[in-house]
């Protein structure tokens, strides 16, 4: 918990100048501000969520992705991230597991549909 409070505190300080030392994690430009705002509204928050809340959520998401990536690199084929590793890491969480299965199946379907469509066009 301390990490979130420190980051929101340090945010103002790190904008001092181009030569400033990058002390704390999350100093990068905000990657997902726009998308996260829409997402928070979709999940039940107000239509205009607070910027600080969006920032906290972005830091959490980036930390989540980082942790998952590190874990995936350490299992299966070392040093690489593969889908099977992600599915393995997620196996205990029913929501995420179902979602990943859905997405991958859907992707396969769409690929097949596109391929069939292209072949139909090519024939004609």
């Amino acid at each position: 918990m301390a990490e979130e409070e420190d980051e929101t505190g340090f945010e103002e300080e790190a904008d001092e100048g181009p030569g400033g030392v990058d002390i704390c994690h999350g100093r990068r430009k905000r990657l997902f501000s726009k998308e996260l705002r829409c997402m928070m509204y979709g999940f039940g928050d107000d239509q205009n969520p607070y910027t600080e809340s969006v920032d906290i959520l972005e830091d959490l998401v980036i930390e989540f992705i980082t942790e998952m990536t590190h874990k995936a690199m350490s299992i299966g084929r070392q040093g690489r991230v593969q889908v099977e590793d992600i599915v393995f890491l997620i196996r205990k969480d029913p929501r995420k597991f179902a979602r990943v299965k859905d997405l991958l199946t859907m992707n396969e379907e769409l690929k097949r549909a596109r391929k069939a469509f292209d072949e139909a066009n090519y024939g004609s």
Partner: protein
Amino acid sequence: MADPARIKTDDTCEKTTTATEEPKPEETDDVSATAKPTQENKEAPSQDQPRQDVKPETAAHEDEEEGTSGQSACKRLKVEPEKKKEKRQKVDEDEIQKMQVLVSSFSEEQLNRYEMYRRSAFPKAAIKRLIQSITGSSVSQNVVIAMSGISKVFAGEIVEEALDVCEKWGDTPPLQPKHMREAVRRLKSRDQIPNTKYKNILFH
């Protein structure tokens, strides 16, 4: 939107190894729920057939007299899983119909929120860049798709928990950082937030 219960039954059918084309008739999340269902219902009957050949290892015994290995893959699907296919079709149709009824009764504001819920997503390019900067090597597209999908679910879990906290504390949306932090604390205690920073040294 899939519900986990439905996926469980589908899992057994999913591990097909046949060469036949068999896209699964599930609802996509890219388009609105109302547009898809009519399409799926048409596809469902013809495409559920080939899938069933994996499951009936038991049914295969019944069909053994019918053909050699090459043929049996097609023959097998005839017998048993008419009922399984119908049952899954029914579950799909039921769910689709319920969703249709629900969405058609939404107010304007609810429709807006639902649309935001379905359409919002993390940009694939940024996620790919982020993962590649961590691994140092390139990652496949499926990895990016999977990772952005679970990140969205993760964000949703936090927001939902934060809304619970907000309501419990008698506050109103928009969510404040204190709600978010309390939500994170609660999820951490349930082990829903991965944390590899502190190793648990058992015997010191």
